[in-house]
């Protein structure tokens, strides 16, 4: 597979790992945050911690859309879908996210009309196929998925589809990074910057991190070699005492971002004054709502949304893990009450959630595996 195999080449990976060991100062401890949940997944999926020196600590960031969504928003969405003749449509990774009275999938088993779609335009198709019903698309994601929601809104308006609305839960990445940097318990040396988000917003929005916060950030791809190269680039900057925005993922991310996508978003969305994030609390101007001109396709303007606010289960420490303050296994519920099969928090559900990634790929490995070679 082109663009995949060359970034998984064992020889190149081994070389990059050697280079990282050479660059890393053995007397220094490096704390690097990978902002994006896709990176967290890749780090565990490819076992990259096995090839990194122990003084490079990777801190998992808040870039997992399912994880940062507070439970109340899920309850809100489900409460609308409980009305007669409403179809609840969402991406597959929403299906097992727990609400107060169960996940969308559990509601489906109890009779709710819940459908998995692979893009929001599939939800429009559903609406056309079910003219007697109302299709609500539960939209989540950062700037990665927001443009496809924006295009769907444009299309719904252009085609005059009236039995369709979007429950908008889109959030933006920059305010979340700012909240992390403002948090007093966070001491970070640099950032592995989100790859997919940056295909849309480009690299410029990160410049304040380098200039004002004096932290290096490298926008990074999702293959093992991408991650190792980005870590190399961060170490090189740190060694020289520099703080710059660099783009390792040039094959996909243009420096200026995707103008057409940004235009579609500007046309359909506006910033909410504030929005609640799990773990990070209320962050101002950190989420998108649908503009007045598209009110007919906005679930929140069309239906009464109860605005349910619930706190996470008491013992769950999702917020601490989400901020990178705790490692997944340090949560009191990890692997006991909370497992991928019976998740208490969303971090254990999404493939991008650090708890699920850690549980699935790492926690039973223990320390005994350093001796296992991969020779077939």
């Amino acid at each position, binding site marked *: 597979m082109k663009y995949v195999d060359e970034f998984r080449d064992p020889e190149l990976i081994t070389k990059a790992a050697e280079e990282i060991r050479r660059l890393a100062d053995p007397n220094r401890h490096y704390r690097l945050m990978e902002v994006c949940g896709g990176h967290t997944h890749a780090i565990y999926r490819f*076992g990259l911690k096995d090839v990194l020196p122990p003084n490079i600590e990777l801190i998992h960031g808040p870039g997992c859309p399912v994880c940062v969504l507070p439970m109340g928003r899920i309850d809100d969405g489900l409460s609308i879908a409980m009305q007669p003749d409403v179809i609840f449509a969402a991406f597959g990774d929403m299906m097992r996210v727990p609400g107060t009275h169960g996940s969308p999938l559990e509601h489906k088993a*109890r009779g709710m009309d819940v459908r998995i779609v692979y893009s929001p335009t599939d939800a429009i198709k559903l609406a056309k196929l079910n003219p007697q019903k109302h299709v609500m698309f539960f939209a989540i994601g950062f700037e990665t998925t927001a443009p496809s929601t924006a295009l769907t809104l444009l299309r719904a308006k252009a085609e005059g589809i009236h039995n369709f609305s979007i429950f908008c839960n889109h959030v933006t990445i920059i305010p979340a990074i700012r909240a992390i940097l403002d948090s007093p318990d966070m001491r970070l040396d640099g950032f592995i910057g989100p790859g997919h988000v940056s295909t849309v917003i480009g690299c410029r929005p990160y410049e304040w991190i380098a200039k004002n916060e004096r932290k290096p950030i490298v926008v990074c791809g999702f293959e093992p070699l991408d991650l190792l190269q980005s870590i190399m680039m961060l170490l090189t900057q740190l060694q020289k005492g520099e703080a710059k925005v660099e783009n390792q993922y040039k094959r996909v991310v243009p420096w200026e971002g995707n103008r057409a996508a940004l235009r579609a978003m500007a046309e359909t969305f506006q910033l909410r004054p504030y929005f609640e994030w799990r773990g990070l609390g209320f962050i101002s101007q950190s989420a998108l709502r649908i503009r007045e001109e598209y009110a007919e396709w906005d679930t929140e303007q069309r239906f009464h949304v109860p605005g349910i606010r619930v706190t996470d289960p008491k013992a769950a420490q999702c917020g601490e893990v989400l901020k990178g303050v705790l490692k997944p296994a340090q949560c009191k519920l990890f692997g006991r009450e909370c497992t991928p099969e019976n998740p208490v928090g969303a971090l254990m559900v999404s493939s991008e959630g650090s708890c699920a990634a850690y549980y699935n790929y790492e926690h039973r490995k223990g320390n005994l595996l350093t001796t296992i070679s991969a020779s077939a």
Partner: protein
Amino acid sequence: MSAGAKLGNPAPKIRFREPQIEMAHGAGGKASRRLVEGLFAPLFFGASAEPLGDAAHLKINGAPMAVTTDSFVVKPIVFPGGSIGELAVNGTVNDLAVSGAKPEALVLTLILEAGLRTDVLQAEIQAIADAARKAGVRIAGGDTKVVEHGKADGMYITTTGLGAPLPDVEINPHSVRSGDKVLLSGPIGDHGITILLARGELEMEGDLRSDTRSVFPLVSAVIREAGPGVRWMRDPTRGGVATSLNELARDCGLGVILFEDSIPVHDAVRGACELLGLDPLHIANEGQFLAVVAPEVADAALKSLQETPGGEEARIVGEIREQPAGSVLVTSLYGGSRIVDMLVGDPLPRIC
């Protein structure tokens, strides 16, 4: 009440506490195992439940016999490389084969939906007849029921298979030892991804066919060379290779190490899995099997497998170690590793 229930068997301990059945209970992964071990096994076998194999080996009046049963609810019923009829024969034949038995006869149950077109039914009956002939099994009997329109998606099929246990082979996870090798008969994930694409819900196309076939010739090739050195076999259907090997790891209490770079996966399967965030190790197969064999016979068994038509892409894909006990660890050539668990939930319902 029979004397047995009164005296011999301790009260069964039902551990299954879930309020209702979800799709995941039929996905062959963790939830299925909880249902079978927590509800069925205690009531059927009491406390003396053995690890559950692909087929039961019984003695009836001293005559050894293997028996198994399997139901097929695949949607759509026809897909590239096969159809529900062919699957219904091969699926049951393969369960007998990997239990170490020669498949001999099938009993067939059809549940048909009123309104099913006769030409569709005839095509499936023909597919069953052809697949049975190819696999060398007789259709010994059957039953047909019809349910109202809208109560079944066209047709469901159940096949029960009878087989003759092969001499000198005992498939038992407890016989697996550290150092044993794991053989895989060919590329994985073709069936699951073919069905996924055939549903047309994704705007993706791929040049893929289901791998449905009888694996008995390949199983025989391994047994011929490795004989009693064959410790364990399984056809990794629902839940894929990862789920089968996790069951083995739990049943034998040892660790299974897989060498990622030696596992054959077609590019179309890899591509689809990358796009959908699935792991090929969790995708269903209908014409492959895994075998754990003693190290001294592994190379000979592999050679025999590769020389059998359809076994050309067989590989040694892993080995058994003491650690990580009860788990499956996948390692890569560059030294990275990850645990691979059983399938959780059901990303691809009604795959067979």
